[in-house]
């Protein structure tokens, strides 16, 4: 049986990027400013994380205008959705393992007989 840490994805296993995917998992598309406010990130920081996720093909980014307002819409891809769900499963598994009572160390049994 493999340890759950083996299944963690380095791109996704990071607070801001996992947060971005958590937001996008809940909505067909989210705007840049919503992501920035919801995750309490600076615009520059969010841009860098989005770039990493886009390069890994986990999100797609659409820039355009709505009226006279420039808007950037971010959407999760199918592989992004899969990666996010897998990461959440692994995290839950890890937490469950950590919370399980540790087995007694070997050699501590009563061997007086």
């Amino acid at each position, binding site marked *: 049986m493999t340890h759950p840490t083996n299944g963690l994805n380095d791109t996704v296993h990071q607070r801001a990027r*996992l*947060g971005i*995917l*958590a937001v996008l998992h809940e*909505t*067909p*598309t989210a705007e*840049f400013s*919503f992501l920035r406010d919801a*995750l309490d990130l600076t615009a520059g920081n969010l841009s860098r994380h989005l770039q990493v996720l886009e390069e890994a093909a986990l999100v797609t980014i659409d820039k355009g205008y709505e009226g006279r307002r420039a808007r950037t819409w971010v959407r999760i891809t199918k592989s992004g959705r899969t990666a996010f769900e897998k990461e959440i499963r692994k995290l839950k598994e890890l937490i469950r393992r950590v919370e399980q009572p540790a087995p007694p160390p070997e050699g501590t049994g009563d061997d007086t007989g």
Partner: protein
Amino acid sequence: MEAEEPAQLLAAATRAAKRTREARRGFWFPLVLFGIIVIGAAPWYRATTATGCAQVVQVGPLVEICHAHDPGFGVPGGDSGDATLYWLIAVVLGYAVTVAFYQWRRFRTGVAGRVLPYALAGVVLFALAVLATPTATQRWSLDPLAHLPGDLVLRGLTPLLVIALALFVLARLERSLPLTAFAALFLVVALVSNLYDVENQTASLGWTTPQDSTMVPNLWLSGFTLLLGGIGFGLAVVARSRGRR
């Protein structure tokens, strides 16, 4: 890779997802809108003949049946064509306005909600209800299939069932347990409105309706349930956003 505690990471992701769900949800709006639409149908549910019968059918030498009018979208003795036209326009417009509202919210909040399947489900269910409702000729025919809807179409309030069933689709899209519970409650209310003369109860409470408006309490029961539900959910949204500030 930054070293983060799994529990902290999971908690942060859960908070972000919860906040997105709250920003995305706007289901109070269709509840209020359809509440108004249902209440607004009352003028088309007045009987226009003195007896309240559009047609009297002789079923035996001594027995006559006061025939409920044709398509199941009006009141016995009323002009069902007008009621049908009202529902056709109001239901389609209601779903179109709901889609437009979600689009406006997407622009305003920066989060898109999925609402198109809800609107499509509502329109398709409504079309099916129109097709499934027996005509006057079918109602008195010997074909057992023509009698299937029976009491369900007698009061001409089948659009309420369409609105109720479509709410389950919205609840699924919004992944909202409170909306699922409300949809179940409203389905019960819509069934009561379709199968029972609510006037029997309102009269015992001292509210007597004119003889030509006996379906109005049925409409109001469903309409005000939707309206109050929508207002309740709307106030909850306002309270949450104030609490966050």
